[in-house]
């Protein structure tokens, strides 16, 4: 199922593809400390980008600068890939309602206010790509949406499209305690898994009918928006982004993923260090939340600063996420730095805020690192990305500057003050003592 019918998607692609070609003149930055993430750092580097893509990078002097390039001296500032947040709730995004615990037909894309201050704040944090998700108060709370943080006034301007024009996104699931409740919500963990299993079995049957009809055996089943989305999950077209904290909950996710063959990214993963071997064996990527103290709810008692390090040592692909508003997008790099504090390698920590997240969103070939041909998505920093004293000075998406700390309006969003957060709504599924 497409977020938008294909012809419309194609039209939008034409409409909004010019964003990339809008950068008609090549831009060359010299004297930057380049952190490509996928290759070693280049202390006195040069990078050229054109039509929204990276055209060249390397040591200064080793990169040919086009004659018509707009050249700028960066004076040692750090240039790294735009940050990728695999789990965000900016834009007041709410997905499923209280009517049932599994709602695959609900699209968070239909509930995002791209004019909310959450977006300029995320740009101020150096973010260029986010996965906006519905909450974790359901076993399955709906379809997520991947957004490039272009300066757009409509959601359509921010969508990320695959080669077929399809707006990319995953599906949000949760187990543990957030998704429990009074009927029709599950009351126990086993019931949670049973409800999920039942739904996926129905999706398997639906897929079988679709496949049969495609092969000329019988009529196609009536369209079922819920099952269509789950079939996309079964076919690997939609990644499951799964909230899970406790080690046994993590193992339950892996069990279900194996049983139904869906692709999964584990999210939060408080007890990840306790299940590192199993996570590594399942090759399940982990997107971690770092909060400043463990607990706040029982399933997060196991939160540790070294979870990223333990998983990294086990060869697991590790990213961090903001879970904005749980943590603020503006200091997302601090999560990577806390990962390093917990023992992650510098390279691993930097990857965890960039390329790892892009890979989890199936966009590792397009963004997340500084490589020729990739999108010109950058953040420019005043100093080392893992230092608390460094500030995001600029954020660029596809060759366009989308945040500039020197701009007073952008600065307001970066530091706060009257007007910076007006009317910002935050939808929490589970805040408070009871659930």
């Amino acid at each position, binding site marked *: 199922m497409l977020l938008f019918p294909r012809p419309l998607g194609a039209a939008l692609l034409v409409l909004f593809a010019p964003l990339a070609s809008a950068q008609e003149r090549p831009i060359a930055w010299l004297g930057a400390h380049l952190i490509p993430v996928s290759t070693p750092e280049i202390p006195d580097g040069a990078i050229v980008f054109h039509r929204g893509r990276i055209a060249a990078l390397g040591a200064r002097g080793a990169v040919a600068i086009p004659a018509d390039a707009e050249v700028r001296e960066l004076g040692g500032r750090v240039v790294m890939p735009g940050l990728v947040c695999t789990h965000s709730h900016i834009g007041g995004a709410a997905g499923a309602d209280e009517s049932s615990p599994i709602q695959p037909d609900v699209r968070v894309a239909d509930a995002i206010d791209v004019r909310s201050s959450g977006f300029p704040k995320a740009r101020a944090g150096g973010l260029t790509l986010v996965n906006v998700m519905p909450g974790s108060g359901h076993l399955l709370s709906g379809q997520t949406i991947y957004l490039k943080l272009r300066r757009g006034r409509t959601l359509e301007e921010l969508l990320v499209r695959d080669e077929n024009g399809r707006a990319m996104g995953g599906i949000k699931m949760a187990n543990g305690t957030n998704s429990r409740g009074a009927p029709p919500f599950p009351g126990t963990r086993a019931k949670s898994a049973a409800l999920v299993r039942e739904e996926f079995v129905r999706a398997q049957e639906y897929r079988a009918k679709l496949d049969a009809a495609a092969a000329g055996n019988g009529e196609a089943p009536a369209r079922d928006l819920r099952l269509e989305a789950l079939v996309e999950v079964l076919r690997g077209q939609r990644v499951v982004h799964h909230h899970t904290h406790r080690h046994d909950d993590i193992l339950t996710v892996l069990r279900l993923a194996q049983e139904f063959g869906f692709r999964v990214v584990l999210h939060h993963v408080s007890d990840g260090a306790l299940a590192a071997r199993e996570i590594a064996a399942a090759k399940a990527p982990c997107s971690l939340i770092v909060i*400043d*103290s*463990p*607990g706040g*709810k029982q399933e997060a008692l196991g939160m540790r*600063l070294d979870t990223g390090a333990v998983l990294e040592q086990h060869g697991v692909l590790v990213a961090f996420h903001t879970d904005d508003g749980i943590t603020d997008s503006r*200091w997302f790099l601090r999560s990577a730095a806390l990962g390093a504090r917990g023992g992650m390698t510098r390279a691993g920590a930097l990857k965890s805020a960039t390329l790892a997240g892009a890979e989890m969103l199936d966009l590792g070939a397009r963004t997340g690192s500084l490589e020729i041909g990739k999108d010109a998505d950058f953040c420019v920093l005043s100093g080392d990305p*893992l230092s608390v004293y460094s500030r995001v000075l600029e954020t660029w998406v596809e060759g366009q500057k989308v945040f500039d700390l020197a701009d007073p309006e952008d600065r307001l969003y970066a530091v706060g*003050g009257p007007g910076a957060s007006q009317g910002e709504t935050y939808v929490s599924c589970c805040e408070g*003592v009871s659930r």
Partner: protein
Amino acid sequence: MSHATPLRALLGHATRTAALLAVLALPLEAQELFVRARLLHTLAGPKVADGIVHVRDGKIAKVGHRSQIAIPSGARVLDAAEVTPGLIDAHSVVGLAGWLNVPHDQDQVERSTPMQPELRAIDAFHSREPLVGWVRSLGVTTLHTGHAPLALLSGQTMIVKTRGRTAEEDSLRELAMIAGCLGDDARGEGGKGPGTRAKRVALLRQELLGAQAYLAAREKDPAKPRELKKEALALLLRRERPLLLTAHRANDILNALRLAQEFSLELVLDGASEIAQVLPQVRAAGCGVILHPTMMRHRGETESASMETAALLHREGLRFALQSGYESYVPKTRVVLWEAAMAAAYGLPREAALAAITSDAARLLRIEARVGSLEVGKDADLVLFDGDPFETTSHVIGVVIDGELVSDEVR
């Protein structure tokens, strides 16, 4: 020469750690400890490069450059890159609020009536609460903790070390302040409390007037029955304890100042997101300010908060400290070290940021005779770091309270 061992190396060896802990188990009188730092933040004068703190009997015996302090042979020595005084969290609810966040470990507010100044923090402080241990392992040695800013007058606060013994043993002050809140969090539901701002102030005035009348009546007739609530309020009226009033919006801040002036109360302003809009008034009132956590969520009443307010207060010369504040969900507590670090990242000079969680916090809480700086005679509360204390990638490698190494986790 002493057998100085870098603490981190020492931590790697379980047997040696066990030996160290055995030493620590000796009676306090026998304890002597030398803490060496490549950089010593005394918070009482300039930083000392290659400094040494000599600890004896739980107190600081000497502080100085290594050339000034001889370390006897065989003495126990801890080494660190940087050492600061034990950190002071100027306002927390840790110990009343626990990490589970279920009713049995949430004692920070009681909602049967909106004003309960008689509720004592020491009757609710859980010294072994894991969050106490968590903040201790990140350098917090003193907490100003108590009833949360979730009711008009939620109760009392206390000042307590984070050693994790009993509340009595660890207490620096059993009754520090009386905590209240003028914002939306003090809104009562179902007619049980004040529904508007004006009503909140009206109720407080009525209650304080009642306490004034009570004091007058007791003076006339000492046999008149005691009333605990009014006795607590009398502490405010006699300026024996400050009123800790949480107010974020500019109009709430002005309400707090007005109320304090009317009843001649000593006010400590808490939260104060919009203080930038009413700086002259706050300055004129001369009250101390415990500024909101730097990374507090900016929404609702705190939507105008700025990362640069701490820097502004410093520039303007206002008395202030930083806090971890109250959190209802995750994280269940913030860590004041990191809140100060973020203030430093947004323009507060590093020395001032450190002072906001040590010496300035101690002065604001009036415990500067005991803690907040590394000076002879003060409690031997120290935090050992392997780098710049504020860098996210640095670690706390040791925490000393009253001369005892209470945390050797590398965190």
